[in-house]
């Protein structure tokens, strides 16, 4: 029983980490319908900004987060303007390919010795780890921080999307960007804002990830990005609570497969679950069923 509870906690940590990245993914997808493969790499940049601001400049934690958020936002807005905006009227797949290009570029360019370098750098912990024992189950303060931050991000996003003018613009663009433009929504601004917002989340996520798994490398972003995207799809892509739900399921299924079935086949079994869920609900768990007007 203790073993099971401990594994649930483990799965929760993994799930909330995925959730942080998935939120950014789902935001961008929800508005522009683009699988932004570069998101994981923006997340990596966020982690590196965290690494440098702590290791080199010893900034206080709030400033660390702030600079990661600022850096990622600027980068994402730049990427959007240079690589995605010119292709807005081209088929979506063209932007997907430039997204892959941007992702590869960020990974290989930053791994040059003159930029971040190729090493695995150990990420300094800005605060000591505290382990609490609750009825034989170990919980760390890092897990608590991740949970709180993810939930705050989720609420913040829900607020932006459903309670602000910009959010209304986002929903309009998501529904039909041509009509939204005709109705006076500044589509370019909304899309830039969306990318910026997604990247800000990636910045927060990157630093938290560095704290939780204290090692950074320029190739660290892709796999978590892919898993997070998968989680977002599982929950119903474009749906904000869905992203968190999907990520939590993903985290639990990976953990439980490791714990009770076979760690060797973990990824395989986790993706079998994904495919089964998709067959049962073709647009994800919380995704609205796709209705096409005939």
């Amino acid at each position: 029983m203790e073993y099971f509870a401990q594994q649930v906690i483990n799965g929760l940590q993994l799930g909330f980490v995925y959730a942080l990245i998935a939120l950014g993914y789902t935001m961008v997808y929800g508005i522009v319908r683009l699988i932004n493969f570069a998101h994981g790499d923006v997340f990596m940049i966020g982690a590196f900004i965290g690494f440098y601001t702590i290791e080199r400049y010893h900034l206080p934690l709030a400033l660390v987060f702030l600079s990661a958020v600022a850096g990622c936002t600027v980068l994402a807005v730049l990427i959007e303007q240079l690589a995605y905006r010119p292709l807005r009227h081209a088929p979506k797949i063209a932007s997907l390919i430039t997204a892959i290009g941007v992702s590869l570029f960020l990974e290989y360019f930053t791994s040059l010795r003159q930029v971040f370098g190729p090493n695995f750098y150990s990420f300094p912990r800005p605060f000591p780890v505290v382990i609490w024992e609750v009825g034989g189950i170990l919980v760390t303060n890092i897990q608590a921080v991740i949970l709180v931050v993810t939930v705050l991000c989720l609420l913040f996003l829900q607020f932006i999307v459903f309670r602000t003018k910009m959010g209304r613009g986002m929903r309009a663009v998501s529904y039909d960007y041509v009509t939204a433009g005709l109705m006076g929504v500044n589509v370019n601004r909304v899309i830039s804002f969306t990318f910026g917002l997604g990247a800000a989340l990636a910045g927060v996520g990157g630093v938290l990830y560095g704290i939780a798994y204290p090692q950074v490398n320029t190739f660290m972003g892709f796999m978590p990005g892919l898993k997070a995207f998968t989680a977002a799809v599982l929950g119903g892509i474009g749906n904000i609570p869905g992203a968190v739900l999907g990520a939590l399921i993903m985290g639990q299924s990976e953990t439980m497969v490791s714990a009770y079935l076979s760690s060797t086949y973990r990824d395989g079994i986790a993706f079998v679950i994904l495919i089964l869920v998709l067959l049962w609900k073709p647009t994800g768990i919380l995704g609205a069923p796709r209705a096409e007007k005939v």
Partner: protein
Amino acid sequence: MRRGLSLLALVVLLVGHFPGCKSPPAKEIRIGLITPLSGDVKTFGESVKNAFEVAVEEANAKGGVAGMKIATFLVDDRNDPTEASNAANLLINQHGVKAIVGSVTSKTTIPVSDLAQSLRIPTITGTATNPKVTVADGKRKDYMFRACYTDSFQGTVMAKFARGTLNATAAAVLYDASNDYSKGIAEVFRDAFVRMGGRVTAYESYGKDDVDFSALLTKVKAAKPDVLFLPDYYNKVGLIAKQAKETGFQGALIGPDGWDSPELVKVAGDAIEGGYFSNHYSPEDTRPEVGNWVKKYKEKFQQTPDALGTLAYDATNMLLEAIRKANSADPGKIRDALASLSGFEGVTGKFTMDEHGDPIKSAVIIQIKDGKQKFLQVVNP
């Protein structure tokens, strides 16, 4: 159709235009290095490249080998088997190299070894541990050599150490299922440990890009092993060790030579304290080869060399020594000299090639104490 043909003609023209294998000037020997200079293991690839360059510079400073200056050709394999094979092909057929050092991982070195074997170019790797690098399907690739141990050697050494010296009865193993180095050593360790009367209570794997090991470690902890064997490189081991401590794991951590890097302690902190690993040499070793190498590397690159770099340095030097002995740029003669190498004094020990092209050398067990590597004992194969 006509346009298709003219396109083909264009391609042919372009290809033909590239410099072919011009015969090198008389007093020069061409050596190639294949190493991952981009991609996920670029950091290892650069260590190897640095070491290779140090070795070649030293030799050239002394006037080259066998009266020939060494001309080097560096190619990147991105840790991809296809690219590695292409790279080896480029070195041999386009650049006309007479010998190759490389590559770094086994999955890239095996295709290189196959190609080098079929084209009869002596090749030595510093770091590829898979037995299939030198012997595959019962056939010895007699142009292929290595400077490191094979998987089976280290797996057995650590099993013996855990069972004998640490008196462990139950062991757990965590390994990377997609990494042949990790998987290879893990399997050998498990089999050897069981053969010596121990029990393997947990045998679990993770993926190349995993960073969260809590589920596995919780499982390991529940299996109550005396030792946890972690056959992987220092970056992964650091993360696992740290999380092992956070899960409250109490047993000893042990591992192979992949642990050897100052980065390990940096990532893992006191979580790795008291851990043991097998290595080629100890930094406390007083032999001049060790001191010179570490000093030179630090001067040039402002960091301590890791095991991969050190092995590549030895591999390159062994190759150069063989050329010296063969006193010829003929690949066949260089091969023969490499095969008959014995008692070669390298940084990582005294080398003698066995009939498989694998070195016979002893290993040392090192313990991490107060964040430093401390020599514990010598183990002979």
